[in-house]
């Protein structure tokens, strides 16, 4: 009756275009540093151009993970921990990002009621296939797969 959350399977998401307005809007609210806000200042910075906050990338990646898992019948609820998150290169204006998700071992324990934990590896890629960020995480998955439908 329940669909197992496919250990050892790999899934790919749709892409999201990261335009300047989205980058600047996130940065203005949460990460107002010059290289995320202003093209001229960014050109002089370590990144060499206007680029998205790393936290923006992490949040967008999680949205893509959620949508992809739910549309494949895997009842993702939320990330509960991230053992490593690395930003390998900046994500510049108008790059298209997507995620590649590898599901790992299922564990029984989760701190969230009605869920179990599952290991998850996420590669965040741009349209050239370059990996811009990687995330090694633990996700809470609902024991009742119908919860996946609610959102």
């Amino acid at each position, binding site marked *: 009756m329940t669909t197992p959350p496919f250990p050892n399977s790999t899934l790919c998401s749709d892409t999201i275009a990261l335009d300047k307005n989205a980058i600047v809007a996130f940065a203005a*609210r949460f990460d*107002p540093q010059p290289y995320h806000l202003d093209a001229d*200042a960014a050109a*002089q*910075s370590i990144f060499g151009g206007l680029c998205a*906050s790393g936290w923006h990338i992490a949040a967008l990646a999680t*949205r893509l993970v959620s949508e992809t898992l739910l549309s494949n019948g895997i009842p993702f*609820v939320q990330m509960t921990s991230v053992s490593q998150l690395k*930003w390998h290169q900046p994500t510049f204006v108008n790059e298209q990002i997507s995620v590649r998700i590898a599901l790992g071992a299922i564990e029984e324990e989760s701190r969230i009621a009605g869920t179990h934990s599952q290991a998850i590896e996420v590669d965040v890629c741009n349209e050239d296939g370059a990996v811009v960020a990687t995330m090694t995480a633990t996700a809470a998955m609902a024991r009742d797969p119908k919860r996946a439908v609610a959102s």
Partner: protein
Amino acid sequence: MTTLYLRDRWFEDLPVGEFHVFGSHTFSELEIVEFAQTFDPRPESTDPEYARGNHSQGLVASPWLITAMWMRKMVDYMEVYAQGVNDGRRNGAGVAINDLHWFEPVRPGHTLTYTYEIIAKPDRVIREKWGLIRSRNEAFNQYSNKVMQFEIDILAERRPVTSNDA
């Protein structure tokens, strides 16, 4: 000997063990819902009515809102006290985070207080001018419960060899 202000310091001037309580924030229902609508659109975070009758026992903030607010509080604090944010050159970019955990839900009306402690200075020189500062960052709610923690490696510019600039 000149006094070093926080905002004038280079990598070499930052001591392991330095600790800051750098900001606090009370989360509103509106910002929890708005963030979730864009980044984490699940009903536990976007729909107060649904969340009330759900396992979540009320609206909960997206975990990434909690970390995003860490960033905002850190930037605000650095603009006043720390080095380089306004000149766009000496400020450090984050490279990687480790051992990020969210322990408890954050709900509308909860107030988080964020802390930062330098725990290591890995012996590396990156692109000839940067060093790495590793810090442990934690957030506590109004009940003094730890709701989040992580370690982050942030670039800090090394003192130029020929410079008298402190």
